[in-house]
């Protein structure tokens, strides 16, 4: 039964590729509709945010991380992707209620397409990282070619979280309010704008349990330091991603049956 679900999910996924494409296109169109700069915002936004934050952290808080702007924007890009995709996925089932009430569609399509459209936006903002590298004269390592690896891991991880959130929020709208606070706490527990070495040892141990820390560190070591992470880091990232996806699919599968009564 369980095996069938996953097998069917994969099979139907193939049939619904056009739908996913249309949904992703819709998200992108709606996001920048009526803004003059349009897609350019995906590039400008991270750059401007990076400017503000690196000013704040280099003058007020005095951080001594080398090439702080690049350090910051690497972490920020991944964190923003995580934050945006899971938030959008959370509302995906609720907002597509009118469709779900009308036609039979495998419902996991909705969180999936939201994470995907967020992934597309994030790929635009990778350009911003290149621009920062150019401006700060950072050394370019060949390992940068592997940049997509941590992004794929993170994508799978976000799909898992998105599935859980989208299913829970149908039954308990509180989740949508609670999640904002949760992500705020999570952000501070992730070394986006600080280095983990400034923390006391016991806190460092706690943060090692944070999957986001590993994805971001993975990404940074490829771009900033020209190192390929050790096997154990790969293992942690892969296990976190797959485990989250499996849990997400299981929760979603269990809860989707009665969606229609609560939408």
């Amino acid at each position, binding site marked *: 039964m369980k095996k069938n679900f996953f097998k069917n999910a994969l099979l139907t996924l193939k049939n619904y590729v*056009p739908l996913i494409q249309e949904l992703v296109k*819709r998200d992108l169109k709606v996001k920048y509709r009526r803004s003059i700069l349009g897609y350019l915002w995906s590039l400008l936004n991270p750059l401007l945010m990076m400017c503000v934050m690196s000013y704040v952290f280099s003058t007020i808080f005095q951080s001594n991380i080398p090439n702080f702007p690049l350090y910051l924007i690497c972490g920020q890009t991944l964190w923003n992707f995580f934050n945006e995709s899971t938030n959008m996925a959370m509302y995906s089932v609720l907002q597509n209620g009118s469709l779900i009430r009308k036609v039979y569609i495998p419902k996991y399509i909705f969180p999936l397409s939201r994470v995907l459209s967020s992934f597309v936006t994030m790929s635009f903002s990778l350009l911003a990282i290149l621009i920062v590298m150019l401006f700060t004269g950072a050394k370019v390592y060949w390992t940068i070619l592997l940049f997509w690896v941590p992004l794929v891991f993170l994508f799978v991880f976000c799909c898992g979280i998105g599935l859980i959130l989208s299913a829970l929020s149908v039954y*308990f709208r509180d989740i949508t309010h609670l999640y904002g606070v949760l992500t705020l706490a999570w952000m501070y527990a992730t070394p986006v704008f600080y280095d983990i070495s400034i923390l006391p040892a016991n806190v460092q141990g706690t943060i090692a349990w944070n999957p986001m820390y590993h994805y971001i560190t993975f990404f940074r070591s490829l771009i900033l330091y020209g190192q390929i992470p050790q096997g154990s880091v790969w293992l942690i990232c892969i296990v976190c991603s797959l485990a989250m996806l499996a849990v997400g699919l299981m929760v979603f599968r269990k809860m989707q049956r009665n969606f229609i009564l609560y939408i």
Partner: protein
Amino acid sequence: MNQQQSIISVKDVSMIFNLASERVDNLKEYILKVLKKELMVQEFYALRDVSLEIGRGESVALVGANGSGKSTLLKVIAGVMSPTKGSVSVKGSIAPMIELGAGFDMDLTARENIFLNGAVLGHDRQFMESHFNSIMDFAELWDFVDVPVKNFSSGMVARLGFAIATEIRADILIVDEVLAVGDFRFQEKCKQRMAEMMSGGTTMLFVSHSAEQVRELCQKAVWLEKGRVKMIGDVNEVCDCYEAS
């Protein structure tokens, strides 16, 4: 009718809703109610032991008072709801017209919505591109092709929805009181297209409160009352009994 020909078969379907007197959609309430064991389960049978066989090419009307389970039955057949008990088997593709325009994104234009809606029904962009012109011709909305749908009147939304759903020849057409909107001329056009589809072998399920339309378009009728099948048979017989009740 013999078994091989039936395209929709509904076997002993019951649909039970938990009619909580208030909807619990927040966590605190839920926990409180579970603790107090107050999460009452007041069961309501929207459908009770409904069995139906519908043959290929038949056109069947569902009649009955408000709340008798007509729409629920359509949704169960369309696969949108899964029945609490019993089973439904459908052989063929379905073009659902339950709440026309429900699948539209109001911020997108008519053009974009055609592709989105087509994808929802399982058609890729290429396929929709080849049908795009005839959809717009039928809906007669060429002047508004790049206008966001939120600026459309309800009649215009219905036109677009109907045009998309009937453009692709599905095996089964499900029509839930959509002819009520739209002006007289468009209603005639819709009826004509439905008649065309039926002569092409499409099976139709039709819900309407207009006995006139039902008699005009359907051969068979099913009378539902409080979730049970009260009568199945020739459209005129069933309608006569229903009207007399």
